[in-house]
């Protein structure tokens, strides 16, 4: 392939855009392990800030992880059957319900949180527990699980699979758990990754729903940015990256694997 000037101009813009994304990440990672940011790297490297963040915010980090797992659990139980019904019974009512289900993603988290606060803010035991935050997270992440699972389910020939299983005498629940769920696994896995990543990073809703005793990781981040030294904020961001990067990379690998066949046919056409 001939490389023209336009190729290099576009490559330049792409690299510039990448630098725009990456430089702040690298800067913050470095600041998190620098003795004194105002003097720069020459002041030496240290893990002191990481330990300090751990002392201050370990409980927030664990709460976030716990919330993500709980959120995954609820979205699996509610979302996989829901996706099955949406795919198996297409129609006007299903479409309407799907639209309703996706609405919490379309409207700002702040508005959702306000609605939850006004309605359930008075229920004291519930308001002050982590379950209140979980409610918000489930509302926000459930559509992602449903869409992801439904996409895989509508691509596989569910009817034939089910008929086959039924002809061998399998009842509905047996078909559901031994035929449908295993076949929908790629979608469930992708949805699960999405749910966990979104839950760990969710701020808009969580900031409104949290109490001093139920701080999550992103709430702690906002707190650290507002009131702590730049080094502590950076070190905390570094911890966040370490947690979230593997999830993001796993998501990308999964997405790549899914679109591989499409891509190879595209390149074949190119030739």
């Amino acid at each position, binding site marked *: 392939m001939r490389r023209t000037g336009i*190729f290099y101009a*576009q490559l330049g813009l792409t690299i510039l855009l990448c630098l725009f994304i990456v430089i702040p990440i690298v800067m913050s990672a470095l600041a998190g392990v620098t003795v004194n940011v105002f003097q720069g790297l020459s002041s030496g490297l240290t893990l002191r800030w990481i330990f300090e963040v751990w002392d201050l915010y370990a409980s927030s980090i664990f709460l976030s992880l716990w919330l993500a797992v709980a959120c995954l659990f609820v979205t699996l139980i509610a979302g996989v059957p829901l996706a099955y019904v949406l795919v198996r019974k297409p129609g006007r009512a299903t479409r309407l319900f799907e639209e309703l*289900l996706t609405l919490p993603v379309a409207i700002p988290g702040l508005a959702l949180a*306000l*609605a939850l606060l006004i309605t359930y803010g008075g229920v004291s035991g519930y308001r002050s527990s982590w379950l209140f935050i979980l409610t918000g997270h489930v509302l926000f992440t459930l559509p992602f699980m449903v869409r992801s699972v439904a996409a895989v389910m509508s691509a596989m020939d569910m009817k034939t699979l089910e008929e086959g299983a*039924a*002809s061998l005498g399998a009842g509905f629940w047996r078909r559901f758990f031994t035929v449908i769920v295993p076949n929908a696994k790629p979608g469930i896995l992708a949805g699960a990754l999405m749910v966990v990543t979104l839950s760990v*990073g969710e701020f*808009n809703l969580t900031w409104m729903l949290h109490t001093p005793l139920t701080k999550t990781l992103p709430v702690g981040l906002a707190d650290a940015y507002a009131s702590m030294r730049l080094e502590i904020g950076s070190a905390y961001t570094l911890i966040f990256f370490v947690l979230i990067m593997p999830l*993001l990379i796993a998501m990308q690998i999964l997405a790549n694997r899914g679109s591989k066949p499409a891509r190879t046919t595209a390149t074949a056409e190119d030739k």
Partner: protein
Amino acid sequence: MSIDLDLKEGRSRPSLLSSFMTPRAAAASPAILSILLIPGLVIVAAFFLIPIARVAFEVGNGPEGWATYLLILTNGRYLESLIQTLAMSAGVTVMALILCAIVGLFLVRNRFAGRSILIGTLTLPLSFPGTVVGFMVIMLAGRQGVIGGLTDAAFGSKLVFAYDIAGLFIGYLYFSIPRVILAVMASAEKLDVQLEEAARSLGASRFRVICDVILPGLMPGLISSGAICFATAMGAFGTAFTLATDIDVLPMVIYTEFTRNANIPVAAALSIVLGLITWACLAAVRSFTGEGKNIAVRGGA
């Protein structure tokens, strides 16, 4: 309808074996289907429909009654923040679309070493919370930021713009790029290269090919990702919150009305209006382009 079909098939093959194998046996009964629906229905009804309805009616209980909904148009401060938020989101959307159309097309059309790393990098911040994006802006353009350091070395004065509207713009662009680039790349992969070759062989210049062939092909993807980008920017809260700017974007106004002024009816009315704008924007585009399956790019922020 499906039951009808099942019956017909059953009749045309009356043998014992085939009646045992009819699709009917495979269809879940309505009772089972409704059991499957219950958890999702309960969640949506109890934690979304009822609360939203309550908020919408809560507004009527305020001192101004239902007129609170009109405050956003009649009160100078709210109107100004609405206009500012709209302008900001539109500006970020246009900027992100231009950058991502060029870069996305480039990444789809060319194969070179390091390509997947570039794609990975550009989509990395997809689910960064708004607060982290705000902090990234501080790292870039804050008092200790890279840009300040560079301008200090070059011109002897620090360029710091993280805490005003330019900083907010940069932050919104930061979280918009991954969303838009994924959508642009998806629709660029579907473009028919042969159309471009045909146009070129007919003597069209590069510019004409871009305007008449490539852009129209990308348009549905650009419109839908633009809508997603716009809606996300309208509702983004964490970035403005971290930068603690004095710029009144609508989510910040809602937040201060609710927490600092305890002005719940106004906060509720503004939230409902903001929610309606973002939802209408996404719904309109979806009915226009006919695609709506790709909510994966909506993500956090």
